[in-house]
């Protein structure tokens, strides 16, 4: 199992397009991936579900915790971390 904490630097937080992008990236992995909003405390939810991610209400500056478990758990965490830390590749 892999766990990391990330700070969201994206201007609009995890809404609409960034959330969709995040969910699509998570869906590429076989591992179970859970995400939790640490700033506005929430339960850990399925990172592959757009609605679950939206209801976390992640805004700019919030911290999220990512957990992955499964055969590709390391790649999954690395890939999502890169996406978030690159500010969604500057796409939004």
């Amino acid at each position, binding site marked *: 199992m892999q766990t990391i904490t990330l700070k969201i630097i994206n201007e609009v*937080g995890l*809404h*609409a*397009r960034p959330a969709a992008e995040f969910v699509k990236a998570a869906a590429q992995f076989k591992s179970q991936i859970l995400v939790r909003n640490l700033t506005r405390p929430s339960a850990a939810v399925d990172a592959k579900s*757009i*609605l*679950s991610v939206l209801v976390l209400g992640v805004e700019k500056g919030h911290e999220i915790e990512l957990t992955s478990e499964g055969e590709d758990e390391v790649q999954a965490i690395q890939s999502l971390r890169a996406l978030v830390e690159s500010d969604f*590749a500057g796409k939004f």
Partner: protein
Amino acid sequence: MTDELKGIAAAPGLAKGPALRWDRGPQEVPKFVPANIPAEKGRLLAARRIAIEQLHELTDQVVEQTSAAEAALFEAQAMFLEDAALVSKAEAVIDSGVNAEEAWHQACEFYAVQLESLPDETLRARSADVRDVGQRVIEILTGPKATPALTTQKIIIARDLAPSQTAALDRSKVLAFCTAEGGPTSHTAILAKALGIPAVVGLGESILDVQNEMMLLVNGTTGMVTLNPSSDLLADFDRMFQADNEQRDHDAKFALEPAITTDGHRVEIAANVGNIEDTRLAIEHGAEGVGLLRTEFLFLDRNQPPDEQTQYSAYRTIMELMGDRPVVVRTLDIGGDKDVPYINFGSEANPFLGYRAIRISLDHPEEFKTQVRALIRAGAGHDLRIMFPMIATLGEAKHARELTQEAMAELPFNAALHNHDVQMGIMVEIPSVVSMADQFAKQVDFFSIFTRF
């Protein structure tokens, strides 16, 4: 008793008539204990598939008819329909011995209520999308709820109108829209403007107390709605309404006449347009040409740039609508406030003056040439002129010209298929261009002067 409500003026115009509530009302979701649990899950799956298909069709329709922004909305709804957490929530409820409609309703509400409670406004607004998509699936499962029959003209009253509701509306019977919620960019406002129907949105809960058939006066220009107007008010309104109509008829009658000043000067009146619908309106109102076609409508609200063929068909439709009248097309002007997800702009202190418009185009020559080729093809047999935005230096003007000529050279000379005889101009919107106008004049065929209003 006469009462007045103030809302947000969403689409201009005056209307008088009886009210009709167009709310879905309290959702009546059928509830029963299903005989066969797997069959119930099968019903839900089938209904979701149909709903996804409907949304994809609606996406295509609105792309053609109205706007890419609306299309993105339907695409987002389709994504919700495939959400694993939502589906497994609904299936878990079915497993507990509940029918598909009720289970789906509960699952959607579970997320809608959570979204509603978030502090962020954009996220809160998604709750309406979840409910709309929920209702769509329930209607597929139960058969559509009888929509109020519109046999005579009415003023439609609703909490907020969702695209799936207005799609079924007989638009010739709608005098005006009044909604409790929504802002100037809500679906209702966008639709009403496109249809030329007056609309007032954001009227608050009070508008929902209006009963069917109550007489209303709607002023979509000021945002005022009058309930049960007194006879004096009605008479005033009739006078305004008549004057408004007369003015409109008068304007319409002379719209197609040439514009000549009292001292005999003829002035060419051309329109600024931003999509196909605008172009139709411009023709109706007597435009003698298009002075500025903004091409951003093809590029915004999508995840990748439109290909040459997509651009060609939109430009071609506009050129054909305009016939032999001149059309000045501005090449892509993104950046500044008009961001697109597929180009990395980086972050800037003042994006309006920074990396945008022609500077982006010159850095992405292939995309720029794709647009030029689409234009050269669409302009065959028409008076097409190409204009470059945000030119600051002679070098940029020269570079844009060269790239345009390169793109033209990629298409064979054939007047029936391609327009190789295109004027190239620049938008004058940066002070340096003004002070060097004489030198720019040698580089380009025309200037467009950028003014606000």
